[in-house]
């Protein structure tokens, strides 16, 4: 039985397989009944709009169905049921489980108790492999993944998407440029792990130092709750804002990505520039999640 829990569990060949299949699904006719008769269980113990909807859409496009809990409040969790029991029970109802949970490692635990495949759709500050795969997929639509220069901008400490992406890009020999507010830097353990693995990780104080040398600029949200007060938040957030002026003179093929939702990190005027790819990125969630579902359910 295959689970997809962490991008760390996939080697480069397996990542390429998923991306190739997603590309096929996006560009060629596919069997719309490939998952006919299959039911996907969407277990979201935390709010999510796009991840949940895109998994539901992906399974529907392949002829399968999805069922979900109404809300955490309506679930047995409020009665004190363990996740392990919930997973064992739901395993009897569905053919695969997509799980989002506030605790890190929840999906790994679920995979130990499930009788069906588990896909991690985000576990606390931990892993979110489908996001990483669609990030890679979007970059690959514009350029080969080998040896590219990627800027990671924003909250790199708590931003799980940046961690997973950094790890995945290291498999492709990328150079990583990190630009983050003080206190929100890439965790030192992760940075040294990447460096030990041969990846060049370069820290910058200012995105202006490096933006003209980038192939990809990956922007993440700086969360207000990480700051003691609003004024210190706005001061920091404004200095990490991507604007058309910042992007003057960048490489013509630069791709600007953001896992969304954005708040103020990207000026809406950037949306009209050719570099802005974050809405395509979001839409790419469908073929990528279709490919993931086929991988574990077919």
């Amino acid at each position, binding site marked *: 039985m295959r689970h997809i829990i*962490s991008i*760390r569990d996939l080697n480069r060949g397996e990542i390429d397989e998923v991306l190739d299949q997603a590309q096929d699904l996006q560009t060629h006719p596919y069997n719309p009944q490939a998952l006919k008769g299959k039911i996907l269980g969407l277990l979201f113990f935390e709010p999510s709009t796009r991840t949940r909807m895109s998994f539901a859409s992906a399974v529907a496009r392949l002829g399968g169905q999805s069922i979900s809990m109404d809300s955490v409040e309506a679930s047995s969790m409020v009665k004190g049921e*363990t*996740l*392990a029991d919930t997973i064992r029970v739901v395993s009897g109802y569905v053919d695969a489980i997509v799980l989002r*949970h*506030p*605790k*890190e*490692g*929840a999906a*790994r*635990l679920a995979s*130990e108790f499930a009788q069906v495949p588990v896909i991690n759709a985000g*576990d*606390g*500050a*931990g*892993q979110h492999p489908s996001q990483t795969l669609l990030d890679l997929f979007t970059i690959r639509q514009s350029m080969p993944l080998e040896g590219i220069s990627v800027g990671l901008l924003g909250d790199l400490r708590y931003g799980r998407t940046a961690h997973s992406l950094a790890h995945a890009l290291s498999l492709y020999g990328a150079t990583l440029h990190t630009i983050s507010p003080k206190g929100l830097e890439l965790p030192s*353990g992760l940075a040294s*792990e990447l460096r030990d693995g041969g990846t060049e990780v370069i820290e910058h104080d200012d995105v202006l130092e490096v933006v003209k040398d980038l192939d990809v600029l990956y922007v993440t949200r700086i969360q207000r709750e990480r700051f003691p007060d609003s004024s210190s938040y706005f001061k920091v957030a404004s200095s990490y804002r991507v604007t058309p002026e910042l992007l003057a003179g960048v490489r013509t093929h630069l791709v600007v990505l953001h896992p969304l939702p954005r708040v103020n990190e990207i000026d809406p005027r950037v949306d009209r520039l050719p570099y802005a790819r974050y809405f395509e990125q979001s839409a790419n969630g469908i073929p990528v999640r279709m490919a993931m579902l086929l991988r574990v359910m077919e």
Partner: protein
Amino acid sequence: MKGGKDARKGLFISPIENGTVIDHITAGEALNVLRIIGITGTTQESISVATNVESGKIGLKDIVKIKNRELRKEEVDRIALIAPRASINIIRNYKVWVKKGVEIPAEVIGIVRCPNPGCISNTNEPIQSCFLVQAKGLRCVYCDWLISKDITSHIM
């Protein structure tokens, strides 16, 4: 009977009739070893502890003797985390009955608590903590947290 050495001769602290002698403990770790195997001020065992004893093998060492208790395999594994060169001698009737080294296991299950408060292993789920032993330290299989130093303070 295994072993034949008369344990009453030439030892720094008094011999025990039955129980366990943990020898070649990294100097200064004896009290942590006791904590790891769950011996605290409230338990009943008779204990002798020697610290910073001269040892030809490792310079200085600590020794612990526990009367009337034979350590089990999982207890020995716990010790390996902080005293990898320790040796365990099971004593019966003043004789070394079994002598074994400690081995750092590939996985450490149910011994170390994950320091990450957001980790699922720190909840009421029916799982034990589980760490992979890696060159840089212990990595939680659930949340990927790496314990690279002061492992002792995370032992349950």
